């Protein structure tokens, strides 16, 4: 390669790596702010602010969903398999909401440490499968479970 082209190659490499390093450092500094939600562990350890609207994400604990009989109010617990947070919500839940399903709730922590949600979104994993396969895996107890790590980055 002639020296001119070599010089231009170095300029191109400098642009790509320079920008990559700059953006990498910025993202590293902003790491916590890029997370869409706080995990139950972070909330339990007081890392999440209490006086402002935040999002909390975790798996809905099996057997924890309690629905009111006369209203849309519902109480349930979410977990990242380390800590658990109670969530209170009044409204229509997404179709995918069920026990053992990942969810992301938006709302505020109240004085008792209960998360008062104003919006609940369902999070699903990449394990798509037909109903028959899901049934068979369920019976065999081999249903792939999202790891707790997924909610705690």
């Amino acid at each position, binding site marked *: 390669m002639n020296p001119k082209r070599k010089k231009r190659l170095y*300029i191109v490499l400098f642009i*790509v790596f320079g*920008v990559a390093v700059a953006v990498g450092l910025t993202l590293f500094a902003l790491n916590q702010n890029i997370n*869409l939600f706080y995990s139950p562990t972070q909330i339990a350890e007081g890392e999440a602010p209490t006086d402002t609207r935040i999002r909390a994400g975790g798996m809905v604990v099996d057997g924890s969903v309690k629905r009111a009989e006369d209203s849309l109010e519902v109480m349930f617990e979410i977990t990242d398999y380390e800590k658990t947070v109670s969530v209170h919500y009044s409204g229509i839940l997404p179709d995918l909401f069920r026990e053992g399903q990942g969810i992301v709730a938006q709302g505020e922590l109240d004085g008792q440490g209960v998360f008062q949600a104003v919006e609940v979104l369902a*999070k699903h994993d*990449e394990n798509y499968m037909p109903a028959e396969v899901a049934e068979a895996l369920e019976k065999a107890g081999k249903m792939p479970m999202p790891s707790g790590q997924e909610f705690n980055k």
Partner: protein
Amino acid sequence: MVEKKKWLPRWFYQLASPRWCYQICGKLLPGFAVAALILLLGGIVWALLFAPADYQQGNSFRIIYLHVPSAILAQSCYMMMAVAGAIGLIWKMKVADMVAKSCAPIGATMAVLALLTGAIWGKPTWGSWWVWDARLTSMLILLFLYLGVMALNSAIESESTAAQASAVLSLVGLVNIPIIKYSVDWWNTLHQPATFTLTERPAMPAEMWVPLLMMVVGFYCFFAVSLMLRLRNEILRRERRAGWVRDLLLSK
């Protein structure tokens, strides 16, 4: 002249000739067009009629057969645009500039398709059209990068300056590609992890992922068709004073 040692294959230097490039594109076009037609038609029929519904999401799962291919293609197309831009910057190769310029509008429409199908899929599954999580936001930035490259190409009068400016912008934006890819691993997002990875078997059964693979390959073939059509236009426009273009026009 002393024959210097060529450290790149011969076809790389042939690519530099607009005429050769125009002709080879013309030869390759029908094959890619047929492949794209067969793969896309077969993939869509399979995806809509024969692929099983997901046990959780039901039939809205079928949106994956457009969402994943368009998202993959939007990112591949961006990488191609940046690499072509870099070749144009370093070797001053006109054809590379034209390839980079032709990539931008195709990639932009693919990014739009990925974002829109994602929003439409998100509503029934997540319960929201849009959330500002890392994956969705970085994908939106990809669309803005494409729009920026297109704006630079059309706003700057001089072709070589426009190519240089848009190549630099594409190279700067290249950092966004690994961010899109790893956003779901690095941060808490609503978006699920990747459907396809190179190292692991997909979690889905074959009757779900085979049509998806067909759609992905079909989208790539279609991209090749659209890119070559645009590239040939661009070559004709810029080489309009060359003898071979005059002969070509007169022979029509």
